[in-house]
């Protein structure tokens, strides 16, 4: 376990167009937060689609991208991975410019979002972070 609490910023640009890229970023964020890192995920590009209500809960992180119930067990969706990250203390932020360009409002986004911030806010936090990861 690390002694120092690190500040990690993750830029999440992957989304529904590449479902197989949508679980690992949240898994890694959860892992880092579980080891006391201060983790923030900024959603942009196709990643903005993941934070729209009703989207991530229909995506499974597979090549097919579709969720189906196998053997009666509830499948783990991308939204489930996102909720794991939130439970571990990861913060979610959406890019204001991306949200505006898609004609979305706060009401259109999942309740797990901690804020809608301008790109400049992401830029500042990325420069001040101990680590910046892009997915």
């Amino acid at each position, binding site marked *: *376990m690390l002694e120092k609490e690190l500040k990690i910023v993750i830029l999440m640009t992957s989304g529904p167009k590449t479902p197989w890229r949508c679980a690992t970023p949240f898994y890694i964020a959860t892992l880092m937060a*579980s080891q006391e890192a201060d983790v923030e995920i900024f959603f942009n590009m196709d990643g903005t689609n993941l934070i729209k209500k009703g989207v991530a809960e229909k995506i499974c992180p597979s090549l097919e991208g579709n969720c189906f119930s196998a053997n009666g067990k509830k499948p783990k969706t991308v939204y489930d991975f996102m909720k794991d990250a939130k439970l571990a203390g990861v913060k979610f932020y959406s890019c204001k410019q991306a949200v505006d360009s898609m004609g979305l409002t706060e009401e259109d986004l999942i309740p797990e979002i901690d804020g809608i911030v301008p790109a400049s806010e992401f830029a500042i936090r990325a420069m001040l972070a101990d680590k910046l990861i892009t997915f």
Partner: protein
Amino acid sequence: MAEVNGCPLPEDRLYYINPDKNAFIWVKEEGDGVFTIGLTSVASAMAGRLVAYTPKKVGKAVKKDKSVATIESGKWVGPVPAPFEAEIVEVNDALKGNPALVNDDPYGQGWIAKLKPADPEAAKAELVDANKAAELLQPIVQEKGVKCG
């Protein structure tokens, strides 16, 4: 033995159940102010077969609900939250080589850590017995479709 959806909850210990903190922990008083903690059978079923166990160091002080160890399965990773503020006095070296002991023997060899709180009586204040734990876990297992055995 109390149980919920086939998941046993031994009555010789207490439990810390807090879904908001993903805490589904058993707590057993060992004497000398030391408590052993581990995952309930419900928690180990939800986590899936573990592939990694990374505890904090012995001697580290942890606050309540802060991570004592990180556990990983193929599809899930998360902290094991401390049920109370305490010092970590021992970690389970057997889990480092065989994390799946948490799944195979959650109440025995699969223990997560041993903790020593500053005030053992206060530490026990928020813990519940097996029957109450089963009651608190019932909605969780229903929502997540958890079954044991």
